[in-house]
Structures are given as C-alpha cells and as structure tokens.
C-alpha cells in the first residue's frame, strides 16, 4: 500500500492562481421540468379538490371564491386551491393527479419575505409573484395518476338482442366493479349534479371496500328506485364526473346497478326499513300515479309513519318506467323489486283505479290530509304535418305502452320514426325487435332534426340502435305523410339546415328544395309528450293556478291549492331521477304541513 506523498498535496495550491468561482446575483434559471411554485389555470380548474386530497402534507386548502359561479351540472365548484408553502414539499402529486391538468409547478423558485402570510398563496396562471414564469413540472400523459379508462361492460351481440326483449347489458363482474370503483377520486361532483343528490362517492367507496350492503344503504338514503336508476338513469352524475374532463367518467350508473344486484331482495327490504318511524302518525296521504315521483313520495311518507294510498290507473306500478321504457333496458321484475320495497313499508297501491273516473279529486281532498298528483306525461304530441291524422301515424308512447301491456300490435314491415331523443330510440328499437320476431328483418328508419353529432339521445342508444339495424337519417324535418288513397306509404322530409336561431331558440331552418321520401307502413311520432289533466275536473282546473300548460307549483311542489301537491314529469319534464328528487321534496313539504294540522277524521 502506498505510503503517500508529503509534497503532492501542495499541488492544490495551484488553485490560488485560478479565477474564483463567481455566480450572478439573480437566480439561476431552473430546469425545464423544475418543480417550483404552483400555477393554476382558473378557467380549466373545476375546484374538485383532488389536489388537496392527494397532498401528503395537507398543504392545499380549497378556498371558496365568491366571484366564481358554481355549475354543478358541468361539474364545477366555485373554489380553487390555495397552497401553504410552510407545508408544501413540491412532490407535485397534485399535478400528476389533477383531473383537468389545470395545476402545474412553475420554474419560479425564490420567495423571500418576513411575513408568513406571503407563503400562503392562491395560485393563478401568473404564479406566486405575477411574473408569468414558464411552467415547469406539468401534466404528462405517460405518468398520469388517474385511471382514465372505464372498465368494459359486457353486452349481448346485436343479433341476439333482436330476438327478444331480454336485458342486453350484462352488468359488471365483481372484479370489474372493484376496478371501476377504485377509479373514483371522491370529489363529489356527482353528488352535486344529481337531482336527488345521491351519495355516489360514499357508495362507490363502499363498493371499493367490498361492502355492498353499505353501498345499498348509502343508495337508499336518497333513492328508492335504484334498481331502475342503476339501469336507465340519465346520469347527470357522469356528465359532471371530474374524470370526464380528460378521460371517461366513472360508470356510476353501472356501479349502482352492481350494488343492487349484489344483494338479495330481502336484504334490500331490510335496509330500506332501517330507521323508519314505527308509530303511526295517524295522517293519511293520497298519491295519484304510481310512477317514480309518486312512489318516492309514498316511500318517504310511509317511512315517516303516515298512511299512504297510491291510486294507479294502469294494472301495474312504475308509470313511464314500465310503460315507456322497453324491457331490454329495464327488466320489469327489477322494477317490481323497487316497487315491492316501497310497498313493504306499508304503502297501499290501488291499481286500475282512475282518479277523475273511479274516484274524484274532491273525494280525495275530503278523505285525506294531503293529496299529491304525479301523473306523468302519457300523451304523445304530434307534429301535425299533413297526413298525421291517418290511423297509421301513431305516438311512440302509445306504441311502447301497448307493447308493455301485451296488446297485440300490428307490426309494420317498414316503419319511420320521427324524433331524435331516447323515446325515439326506444320506439325504433322496440319496432326492430317486433319486426325481427314477425318477419326476421329490421326495416326502421329514424329521422331526426339534429345532425349526427348533436343527437338528443344518449350516444350509447344511438350506437346500439344502429347496431340493431335502425337507419338513422340526421338533419331531416317532416313535411308531410304520404297517403295513397287511404293508405299511408311514407313520410316526406326536408333538410334541416340549422335548429336554433341566433338567440338560441329552437327554430329550425329548412332547405325546402332538398326533399326526401322515407317509405313506411307506419309513421311513429316520438317528439314531445303531455299530461292528461282531465282527472282534475272542471272546477279544480279552473281553481288552480297554471304555468302555461302545467299547474303552477312552489319550490316544494305545492300547487296553489293548499291540500294539493304535484311532482314529476307533469311539472318538470321527463326524467326518472328528477321525478325521484321531486318526490322527496313533495314528501318533505307534505310531512311538514300535515304534522302541524289537525288529523282528518
């Protein structure tokens, strides 16, 4: 081993002759990927708070900004992240998890000041000192912390679907449900967007932890129609889902279905009965219409100990859920399960009892402490273009009701459907199944005013309809039905150039030269729907205040008559989950009202 030298170390003295290292006073430019102070694009930020959740130092607070507007339907909360640099460790997990990519770290890294408050900032695009430093560490697609892809859902092949009205969507497997649930970031946008404010984050978390019973318990806090909503909800929640900003929103609807499918009916009944009032209140409430609004109201009131009687004109409960939604989307035994849970709480449903015919509104008023009507929109509108008075021009809603009721339908070999919404798809796809059964071939043409990229119907519905052989013709408006003698032979349409006028009002503009004939033995009109208010009788109709064609209600669903409430599609337009929400509101209002009143003898 070397003993070393005494002289060689002295060579380092040469450093005395070298120029000293000097550095400029201003901070050295940071690397392009640097993790300096935060910047946040307020336009892109949705206030979801995921950055605050992932922050391992709790350095991020979500601060309410009064100037910002909340937009629950779009999934935007009026708050933005504030960063405490006394806690921040610049790990940038906030950047990597941000659902929108609004937050980044900049290349600015110097802040000096004696005032501790200056270390707590609300970053915007300009950065901590407003100096517009360039971005450093920002969103990178190859290391995103969010799982942006949805679990695939099994469904029947189109040819198999057409053979029957069997449910076409398979539902999640336990593994897929777990993976899907694990994608949730628990921001609660879904909760805010849901008309009924369902506790989706809570039930998704429960599913993630393997507790389906707890999930159903969370679901039943706000929705007694979860078998239904787990299948056919319009799912505002998914539109608002933060993950939808850059990826696919959580399949909240299918997770709800998975939760409901995981439990047997007895378990659901037990959960629904938890916490109900056992002592009867002695109050009686009549509800007209056993649809989602009416039965939700009945469910709430029955849980509070009131005696609820529901009057239903048709032979089964469910309203539009049964008589409007085809069974391949919603198996009716699932709907029966939901109804049975409600009935099991002591709700009496009188079927085939048409109010206004079998019993008058006045009788209900006199016999009950409160009356709620939720009769839905069961009459189809017509375009009333020439020829629509032909007997082979039918309303979609009548067709769908007849199919559910089992009434023999004359299946047309060729059919034309007018409309671009979900009802139109329901009608077209129902016809496709009936045609397959009767003739083995599908010949359904669907004409929609809207262009293909702005269809009112769900994208899934449109895709599935096409898969089943429905021909969708976009941007066409009906001009007349073609009648040959007495016989309907088709529909003539003209090209629709635009749908909305410059004030955004619905006012289509047509190219009248571009006409086209769609052959069909039957024309199905699937446009608007309306209510049949004849049950009210002349006197009550005259007494009520009206808001256009609908009874005027206050925010709780109460009409101008103090004993009468109204809810659901008939006052709010068609949607199950809105009807559920309206049912809850009306029930709360009715409960508050009748509890302070004398009992009706």
């Amino acid at each position, binding site marked *: 081993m070397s003993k070393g030298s005494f002289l060689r170390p002295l060579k380092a003295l040469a450093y005395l002759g070298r120029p000293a290292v000097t550095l400029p006073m201003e901070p050295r430019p940071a690397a392009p990927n640097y993790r300096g102070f935060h910047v946040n694009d307020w336009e892109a930020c949705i206030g979801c708070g995921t950055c605050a959740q992932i922050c*391992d130092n709790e350095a991020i607070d979500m601060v309410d900004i009064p100037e910002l507007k909340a937009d629950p339907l779009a999934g935007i909360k009026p708050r933005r992240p504030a960063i405490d640099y006394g806690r921040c*460790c610049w790990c940038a997990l906030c950047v990597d998890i941000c659902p929108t990519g609004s937050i980044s770290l900049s290349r600015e890294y110097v802040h000096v000041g004696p005032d501790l408050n200056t270390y707590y900032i609300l970053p915007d695009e300009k950065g901590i000192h407003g100096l517009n430093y360039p971005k450093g560490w920002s969103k990178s697609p190859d*290391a995103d912390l969010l799982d942006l892809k949805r679990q695939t859902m099994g469904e029947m092949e189109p040819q198999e679907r057409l053979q029957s009205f069997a449910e076409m969507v398979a539902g999640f497997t336990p593994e897929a449900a777990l993976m899907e649930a694990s994608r949730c970031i628990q921001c609660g946008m879904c909760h805010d967007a849901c008309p009924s404010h369902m506790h989706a984050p809570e039930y998704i978390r429960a599913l993630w932890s393997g507790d389906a019973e707890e999930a159903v318990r969370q679901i039943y806090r706000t929705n007694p129609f979860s078998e239904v909503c787990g299948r056919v909800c319009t799912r505002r929640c998914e539109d608002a889902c933060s993950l939808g900003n850059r990826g696919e929103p959580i399949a909240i609807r299918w997770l709800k279905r998975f939760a409901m499918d995981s439990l047997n009916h007895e378990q659901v009944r037990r959960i629904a009965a938890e916490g109900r009032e056992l002592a009867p209140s002695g109050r009686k409430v009549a509800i007209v219409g056993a649809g989602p609004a009416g039965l939700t109201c009945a469910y709430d009131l029955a849980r509070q100990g009131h005696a609820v009687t529901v009057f239903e004109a048709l032979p089964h409960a469910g309203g539009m859920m049964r008589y409007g939604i085809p069974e391949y989307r919603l198996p009716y035994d699932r709907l029966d399960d939901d109804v049975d849970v409600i009935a099991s709480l002591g709700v009496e449903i009188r079927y085939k009892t048409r109010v206004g015919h079998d019993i008058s509104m006045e009788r209900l008023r006199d016999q009950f402490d409160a009356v709620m009507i939720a009769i839905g929109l069961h009459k189809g509108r017509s375009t009333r273009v020439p020829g629509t008075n032909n007997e082979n021009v039918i309303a979609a809603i009548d067709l769908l009701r007849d199919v559910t009721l089992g009434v023999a339908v004359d299946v047309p070999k060729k059919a034309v459907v007018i409309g671009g919404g979900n009802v139109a798809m329901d009608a077209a796809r129902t016809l496709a199944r009936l045609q397959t059964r009767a003739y083995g071939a599908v010949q359904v043409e669907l004409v929609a005013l809207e262009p293909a990229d702005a269809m009112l119907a769900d994208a899934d519905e449109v895709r599935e309809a096409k898969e089943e052989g429905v021909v969708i013709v976009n941007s066409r408006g009906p001009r007349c039905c073609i009648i040959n003698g007495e016989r309907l032979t088709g529909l003539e349409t003209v090209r629709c150039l635009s749908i909305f006028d410059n004030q955004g009002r619905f006012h289509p503009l047509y190219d009248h030269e571009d006409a086209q004939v769609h052959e069909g033995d039957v024309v199905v009109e699937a446009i608007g729907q309306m209510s049949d208010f004849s049950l009210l009788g002349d006197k009550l109709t005259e007494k009520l205040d009206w808001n256009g064609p609908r009874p005027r209600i206050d925010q709780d669903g109460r009409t101008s008559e103090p004993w009468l409430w109204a809810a659901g599609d008939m006052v709010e337009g068609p949607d199950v989950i809105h009807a559920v929400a309206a049912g809850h509101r009306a029930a709360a209002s009715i409960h508050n009202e009748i509890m302070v009143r004398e009992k009706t003898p």
Partner: protein
Amino acid sequence: MRPENYKPVQHSASHEYELYFGPNHPGIEGNYALKCVLSGDVVQSLRADGGYLHRGFEKIMEERLWIQNVALVPRICVPDPVPMEETYARAVEMLGGLEIPKRAQWIRALMLEASRVCAHLFYFGGHAATMGMYSNMFWGVTDRDLILDIFEEITGARIYHMYITPGGVRRDLPEGVLDRLSKVLDYVESRLPEFDNLFFDNAVVINRATGVGTLTTEQALSWGVTGPNLRACGLPFDVRRDDPYLIYDELDFDIPTETAGDAWARTLVRREELLQSIRILRQIIATLPKVGGPIRCALPNPLAWNVPAGSVYARTESSKGELGFFVVSKGGAKPWRVHVRGPSSMHAVHVLERLGPGSRLEDVAQIMFSLDACPPEVDR
C-alpha cells in the same frame, strides 16, 4: 431533609470524565451525539445518543396513502436519497405484483448509480473534513453539484427527487440528458487525479486514517456491517450482484474490496466504487436509448389503491450498505407497517459503540464518518 441525616456522596478518585460529543461535530451528516467517557484523550466507552433527527417516518407512513409515501422516503437519508425511493417502490411493487417496464428499470439504475457517485463525492469531502481538511470537502460538494444539475433536469428537483414511484418512474428522461451526464462523468473522472494529489496520495491523510476504527471480518459480520464497510474487510458482498434487482444482472462491474478493515480501507473501497459506478453509468448511457416502452406500468387510482395483504422485504445496495424496507400490507389504501432497515443504524450505533473504546477523541469523528453513518437514516 434533617441535617443529621445528610450524607454527602463520596466520589472515588478517577481519571475519567464524560464528554457529550455533539450533536454538532465534524463526523456527521446530520445532528448526532455521542456520550463519551474519556481518560485523557482515549475513549473508555461510548454511547450513541441519537434522536435529534427523529421525524417518525415509519409511523407517518402508516397514515399516508401508498403513493404519498413516495414524497416521504427520500427524506430519510439526505446524502443518498435515491435508494430510499427505489427500495420503497420495489417493496410496493412486490406486494402488488407490479411489473416495472424495462425502460423504467434502466432509468432507475441510472438514478441509483448517479446518486452513489454523489454520495461518494460527498464522502471523500466529509472524511477529509473530519481531519480538518476542508478543501477536499469543497471540491467534493462542488463536483457533486454537477450531478445534482442532472437530477434537476430529470426529476425537476435537486435533492429530494420523489421521482421513483411504485411501477416505474414519474417522467421520461429529457432530450439530451444522457449526453450531458456523460460529460459530467468525464469531468468527474478527470478530477480524480486532483483528489488523489490532495487526499488519496496524501501521506498525512494516510497516516491519520490507517489503523483507525479497524473491523475484522468476523466483527463486521456479527455486527451487521454491510456495503463498502464490509467490503473494506475483504468480503465482496454486494446486493447488486448477490441479489440483483432491476437490470443489474445485465451490467458489467467489479466489486472492489480491501482487506485492512480500517478507515483508510473504507475510503479506498469507495474511491474504486466511484469508478465502478461511472463504468455502470456509461453502460446505461449506451443502452438506454435502445430501450423503449413505457416508463411506468398502469397503476390504480392512488386514492383508492388497495395493495394486497402481505409482507415483503426489499433491499438495495445503497452507497452506505444494504438498505432494506420491510413493508406489511393488510390490504387497503395505506401500509400497515413500514420498517426501514437503514445501514447507518448498524454502523452508527452498534459498530461505532464498539469501535469507539480505545480510540482517541480526535479519531471519533473520523471513525463515524468513515463508516458513512447517516444520522437522519438512523433516527428516521
């Protein structure tokens, strides 16, 4: 007390006195005290008295999401943080059955070896400083800074990179960084003759370090010594070669050893290791451009990441010895237990307490530093 009951304590005559050495002294990479009993300037007994840097990482990690701990682990050891990230990530990968993409493995090896170069440069400076030779310290720290620049480019941070994550790494390499790293390595290599002049061939240094803090192979093995300290006793054990991880089995490198087992041998081993690390880095620089693919495997949403139940021990050859993470999951979003088996807790407590007695006070700092004991990692 009544005066008649008062009996003064009788001290026997002694040459010994107790010296509280620290918590700031030259032998440390962080605050750490030693309770020495001295007779003259010869240490009679020595008790390690750590805790100044106790931040409770192991406990905190039980309260953090799996991914959040990525931000915590590098802080366990300041001078050599990358092996902390690597070992934690690998433990989680073992639990979760994650497959690290090839490219990420190469990048991780690059980070580990660059960190070793950093740590060794720091070590040369530190060891010299314990003898009062600060020029070496300045040189080492200055050259190390060039590698920190490379780290900054790759990870956006200089010291605590928080870059290696379970499943891979967080960002791909920026354009041209391998060339720049290559130049830095050339420079570091070209600097070695100057270090030799000042330090490794310095007769004063050799005299001061030889025979100080000598460990026999048997002692080293029975006291849990690992890493360069073990190799300085002649035992060529290296986790990279004997229990290879990442792509180390595809690399060509030697395991340098010395036989003397003293402070000088430990320093010589590290000098040679620095060259080996540069050799490894050159291989990585040559290979990495040919290794494509993703830099991280698909991970579940970290807020709801259910790592399967189980317990694993993952180990890495850090610049200071074998670094192990014992991680227990009971299933769920957070670890149930994380234990860090830092090499320094052996070296700075058990080994130092035994090497201390008989040595001279002025060598205590040198012994501690020659073991490359890192107090933040002891305390955790």
